């Protein structure tokens, strides 16, 4: 069985290699190869899962040592895999959702001439993501970590001819790199402290070192998680990442890659348990981000950007739960899985809407679409109910548990975190209801040509249609697209209930992820009631604004907060003023300095020598008589000197 683990990674990796090196002759079959290999990886995962279920709970960890990667002195990095319940959960999520999205992309990318390459990149992503969750040491995890960053870069910038896509891809990679500094430094501290960076020895002996070291490692890991999972303050890339094709947003920027930060924190739970300061930092980041993302989501008109804000916010929930320690780890992972289902479903639904609407993303140009795309409406609707936490659906179970755990943190901290989580739940209900109402209900605003606005370039008529407005003909998407959406909708509805049945999910993870029951200061039922009330308030507020009144086709100016939220709460303006501009000045200054001062010193020396020789050259004028004078003078000086020496 162990030998199959490597194959999990190898299958999509082979697909990427074949598709990217295969050239044009694979253009016709490439997408089938890619999908088949993704499915093969999923089947392997299922086989391993079945095998794992067949064994005792304490004996479910498999490991495979492939080869020694970097052996230098005490530094021994191996290519070795570890498949336990935690990584198994991820393997199934990644390969399962991944395969569905491969299938969806067959239809979605049908008219793209570079479809083969798209599938190559998707396969590369799967391989890197599986490497990330299967690695048994931090360095190999780091390799997968950067690998998914690369795949994300390639896929965000897939339509490279658009400057905005290329810029967004670059931004995503660089912001992620800032986070990667954290992971590198964490590994260095681990090596310096423990002499190793494999999971088990580090996590087992973390108690033997001081709290300071554990805090340092924890904070560095948190930095890494912030980068990958788009948490404040490294959140700015996720919104722009929506420039990529929608299946990419669904797979990478919703269901899997962005949750890697949560995986990292939960995997390193022992380190955070030993470092309360780092845990406080984690919950703070989680709480701030869940509100940040939700506020941004409330103001955006671009459907994908709303979903991006929502993703950020939901991952904020997971990070918050992961920062709570053993009372939250399992729920963080549970929410991660259910979120994987419903958010991927929502994104695919958004893609399906765009597919039928000439790639329009502005929700103010939608409206009343439920008649035209019933399957999309139904699946999107189920995803919607799941994400807002409608009782009985997936999101309800996982989110409610997190809110409960947040209150259970205890003291003022517990109240603040719980309050933030509740507020987040209300906001989630608000912005998701807003999306539903603006997209599928109300007037059919897309029938009229958009009125151009000088302030909002996004609603200007598309340049490629030459100013002529072409009324879209909304239609349902092909089967290859709707089937994955239906499957994901099933997951959105039932996964949560299944996982919570007798705490099945918690017990499944317990051998690797420690679990404790949290004890909130009020009864669990009260928390649930409060969650439902928050949800109703959010839905009601949205209905008052977007359901009862017609939605203006042009965005109103809005309050100061709305305008700030539309600009992602000024994150880019902040980065621009604090980082980009000074950086530009620094670079320009240094270029000038290098030329004028460092190089100038050298050239100056050369010029000084040149000038000196120019002066001395004048003495050598070629006139024999002047040489004779200097000889005479020299002789006279010599004689005089000799005489003087004698005299003295």
């Amino acid at each position, binding site marked *: 069985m162990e030998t199959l683990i490597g194959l999990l990674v190898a299958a999509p990796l082979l697909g990427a290699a074949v598709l990217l090196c295969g050239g044009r002759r694979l253009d016709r079959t490439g997408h089938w190869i890619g999908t088949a290999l993704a499915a093969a990886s999923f089947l392997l995962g299922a086989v391993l899962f079945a095998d794992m279920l067949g064994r005792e709970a304490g004996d479910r960890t498999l490991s495979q040592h492939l080869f020694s990667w970097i052996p230098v002195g005490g530094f021994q990095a191996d290519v070795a895999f570890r498949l336990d319940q935690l990584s198994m959960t991820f393997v199934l999520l990644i390969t399962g959702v991944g395969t569905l999205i491969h299938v969806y992309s067959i239809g979605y990318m049908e008219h793209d001439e570079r479809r083969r390459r798209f599938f190559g990149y998707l396969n590369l992503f799967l391989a890197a993501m599986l490497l990330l969750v299967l690695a048994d040491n931090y360095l190999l995890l780091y390799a997968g970590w950067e690998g998914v960053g690369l795949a994300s870069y390639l896929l965000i910038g897939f339509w490279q001819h658009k400057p905005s896509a290329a810029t967004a891809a670059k931004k995503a990679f660089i912001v992620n790199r800032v986070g990667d500094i954290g992971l590198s430094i964490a590994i260095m501290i681990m090596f310096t402290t423990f002499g190793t960076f494999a999971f088990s020895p580090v996590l087992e002996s973390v108690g033997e070192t001081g709290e300071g070291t554990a805090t340092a490692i924890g904070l560095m890991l948190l930095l890494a998680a912030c980068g990958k999972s788009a948490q404040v303050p490294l959140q700015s890339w996720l919104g722009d990442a929506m420039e990529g094709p929608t299946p990419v947003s669904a797979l990478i920027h919703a269901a899997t890659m962005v949750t890697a930060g949560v995986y990292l924190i939960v995997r390193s739970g022992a380190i955070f348990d030993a470092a309360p300061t780092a845990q406080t930092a984690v919950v703070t980041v989680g709480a701030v981000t869940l509100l940040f993302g939700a506020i941004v989501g409330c103001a955006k008109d671009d459907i994908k950007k709303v979903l991006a804000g929502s993703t950020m916010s939901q991952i904020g929930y997971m990070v918050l739960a992961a920062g709570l320690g053993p009372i939250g780890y399992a729920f963080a992972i549970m929410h991660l899985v259910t979120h994987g289902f419903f958010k991927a479903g929502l994104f695919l639904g958004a893609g399906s809407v765009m597919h039928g609407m000439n790639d329009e993303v502005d929700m103010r140009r939608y409206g009343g679409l439920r008649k035209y795309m019933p399957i999309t409406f139904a699946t999107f609707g189920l995803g919607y109910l799941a994400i807002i936490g409608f009782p009985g659906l997936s999101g309800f179970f996982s989110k409610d548990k997190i809110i409960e755990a947040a209150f259970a943190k205890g003291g003022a901290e517990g109240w603040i975190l719980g309050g933030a989580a509740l507020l987040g739940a209300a906001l989630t209900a608000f912005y998701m209801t807003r999306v539903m109402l603006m997209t599928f209900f109300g007037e059919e605003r897309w029938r009229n040509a958009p009125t151009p606005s000088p302030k909002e370039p996004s609603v200007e008529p598309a340049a490629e249609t030459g100013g002529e407005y072409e009324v879209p003909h909304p239609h349902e998407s092909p089967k290859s697209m709707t089937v994955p959406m239906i499957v994901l909708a099933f997951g959105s509805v039932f996964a949560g209930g299944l996982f919570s049945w007798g705490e099945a999910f918690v017990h499944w993870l317990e051998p690797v992820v420690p679990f404790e029951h949290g004890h909130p200061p009020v009864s669990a039922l009260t928390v649930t009631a409060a969650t439902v009330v928050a949800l109703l308030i959010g839905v009601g507020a949205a209905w008052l604004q977007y359901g009862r009144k017609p939605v203006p086709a042009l965005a109103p100016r809005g309050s100061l907060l709305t305008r700030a939220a539309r600009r992602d709460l000024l994150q880019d303006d902040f980065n621009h003023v604090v980082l980009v501009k000074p950086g530009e000045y620094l670079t320009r200054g240094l270029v000038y300095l290098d030329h004028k001062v460092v190089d100038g010193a050298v050239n100056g020396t050369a010029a000084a020598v040149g000038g000196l020789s120019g002066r001395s050259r004048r003495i050598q*004028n*070629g*006139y*024999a*008589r002047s040489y*004779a*004078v200097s000889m*005479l003078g020299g002789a006279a000086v010599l004689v005089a000197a000799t005489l003087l020496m004698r005299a003295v």
Partner: protein
Amino acid sequence: MNPVNYLYLAALLFTIGASGVLLRRNAIVVFMSVELMLNAANLALVAFSRLHGNLDGQIIAFFTMVVAAAEVVVGLAIIVTIFRSRHSASVDDASLMKL
């Protein structure tokens, strides 16, 4: 006669020679002035030889004469060549190391 007077004469001749070298432009004159300086030196050598009562100075004077003769041969040849190509014997005209 006091041999020191010969030294005065040598100094005088040397000065005349040196002034000639420095002040005249004609290569031939410069050349003769150089000869004058050499002979002034010879005179001084012989005078010293007499003063000190050994023959070293006179021997060196013979050497100087031989060198001067060789110099005349080479020097005159150069001057004649320069004169042929430039139609001038001025030393200032030949300030570059080429013709």
